[in-house]
């Protein structure tokens, strides 16, 4: 078991033949992901990386039966691509592209939800079920199979966290990079219950950062509904107010969205909060030893 994706998941790539799309699709194929085709307008009928190319997502879904799409199109085309995927009956769109305008994502996410399509990202490393299915740009080799679920706004902190968990002798069930934009798809509150329901996952690592209140919402949810141990780190305790820290959404505005308030809320919800990402592995070892 795992969440959202596994070795049988059929994946298409939107922006398949572009530089980034090609490079990462090839890496995913090498990892074992069932990439069954891709979409690039006007290249339908050709082959790329040994897989068929289609002009539209509808064609790709009809022929391959894919349920997940990995999106690599340029920023201004992201909304169009997401809505096309939703319209074609895709169940989950994983949006890797960085720099999609917020107004576009607002409309695209609203449309996706109306069609029952889940989204991950944008501006994220993607999702990986260890040793089964990698849909994204993360280095596959650091994710050893195991019983820790991971949710993170940051790409490199996903790798840092997963690496520490594995070095402590544990492993990852599924890791989801949710992205740090102001509007994102699946977040902690939607992913936590999936990990709670997954028998393979015994503990959860949650990595957040300054800006917005998704971590606060997560804390409220954990308090009421999550029985598995959760370890959390919130990046940006030392970030100045009013400054954007790399991610479009990582900003403390009007005094709201600080690391301190998020850490306090999570602690009050019974989460083991660490003050440095260097402590994630040890904290997981502790909470799993207690069980």
């Amino acid at each position: 078991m795992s969440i959202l994706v596994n070795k049988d998941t059929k994946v298409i790539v939107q922006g398949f033949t572009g530089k980034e799309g090609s490079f990462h699709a090839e890496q995913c194929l090498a990892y074992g992901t069932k990439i069954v085709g891709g979409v690039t307008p006007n290249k339908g009928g050709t082959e790329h990386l040994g897989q068929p190319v289609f002009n539209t997502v509808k064609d790709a879904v009809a022929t391959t039966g894919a349920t997940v799409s990995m999106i690599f199109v340029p920023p201004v085309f992201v909304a169009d691509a997401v809505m096309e995927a939703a319209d074609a009956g895709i169940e989950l769109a994983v949006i890797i592209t960085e720099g999609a305008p917020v107004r576009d994502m607002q409309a695209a996410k609203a449309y996706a939800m109306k069609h029952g399509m889940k989204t991950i990202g944008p501006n994220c490393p993607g999702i990986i079920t260890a040793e089964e299915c990698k849909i994204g740009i993360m280095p596959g080799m650091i994710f050893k199979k195991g019983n820790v679920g991971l949710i993170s706004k940051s790409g490199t902190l996903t790798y840092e966290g997963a690496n520490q968990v594995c070095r402590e002798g544990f492993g990852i069930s599924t890791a989801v990079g949710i992205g740090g934009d102001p509007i994102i798809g699946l977040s902690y509150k939607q992913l936590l219950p999936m990990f709670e329901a997954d028998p393979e996952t015994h503990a959860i690592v949650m990595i957040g950062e300054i800006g917005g209140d998704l971590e606060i919402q997560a804390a409220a949810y954990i308090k009421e509904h999550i029985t598995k141990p959760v370890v959390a780190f919130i990046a940006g305790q030392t970030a100045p107010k009013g400054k954007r820290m790399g991610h479009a959404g990582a900003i403390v505005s009007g005094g709201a969205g600080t690391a301190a308030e998020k850490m306090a809320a999570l602690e009050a919800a019974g989460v083991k909060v660490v003050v440095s990402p260097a402590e994630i592995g040890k904290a997981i070892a502790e909470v799993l030893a207690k069980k």
Partner: protein
Amino acid sequence: MNIHEYQAKQIFAKYGVPTPKGLMAESVDQAVKNAEILGGPIWVVKAQIHAGGRGLGGGVKLARSIEEVEKLSREILGMTLVTHQTGPEGKLVQKLYIEDGADIKDELYLGVVLDRAREMPVIMASTEGGMAIEDVAHDSPEKIIKVAVDPAIGFQGFHGRELVFGLGITDPSEQKKFIDFASKLYKLYMENDAEMIEINPLVKTGSGEFLALDGKMGFDDSALGRHPDIEAMRDISEEDADEREAGKYGLSYVSLDGEIGCMVNGAGLAMGTMDTINYMGGTPANFLDVGGKANAETVAKGFEIILKNPKVKAIFVNIFGGIVRCDRIANGILEATKLVDVHVPVIVRLDGTNAPEAAEILRNANIANVIAATDLADGAAKAVAAAKQAK
């Protein structure tokens, strides 16, 4: 990206949002000419900088004669204005806005921002105009009316009614004018990919007209590509020179006031590195995300920008190589140390893809001030120790 008040008011005017008449000036002579064109009898001389709190800082003053306009312009132009948003170093005033004085009866607040929790724009209004909205939100949150607008339906009549009844506007003709004002503001927010608009104060005049006395706008950087007219309003003198220089090389940089320079890949890990340095008793000098394409050139540029800060006593390079291989980054660091004179200890932690090869490269190069670290905690501890030793 942020713009000046006078530029925001140009956009307001284009959409029919009422503002007092005004003209921008970059010299005292120009300010006087502008005042003559406007005709008076009362003018407001306003410093144009990208920060709020200008009035309290002495950057907004009333003039009752042309002579007074000249005197005040001379005072304000070229002054370093310190407000609660500029930081203690303040900002140099290089532009003025000369505006008609308004007959103020009431001061209100009106703004539009993205409500991240609801994932749609929210119009915020308050009867407490002229005060910092953060303070109103903190002290009397019930005095802020929030109306979220779903872009799928746009600004509807009920949104307007919630605003005017919430503000206690009872006169039907005033209600109509305010609703029209708010709907135009929403429209220009959406059409220009704004990130935030703030009018504080929005005034009601003695004759019952609503006027945007101030105007602040920020835009979604990711959408500027489709708004060349807005991009043209960029004032680079208002931006941090180092942040701007870093941006040209795909680096994301924010300066802080500590002693340990940080060079990291990924925004989250970059913040996490600062937090770890702080946790171990040191102080971070900056946030620097070199992005996913760290190479010799970007690493060299990163060193150069970090070392401009004389407070820096050590540099911590913390890279978790994913798709980017660590051995390449190690070579990049070696090359960069040849391009830039790195005179402080550099602690290097390279983890992930090909990390053992990278460690080997650094060991063989045997550069005196390059210290290898095994993981994040080890690297941060070594950086803190090196900075303390340098004192």
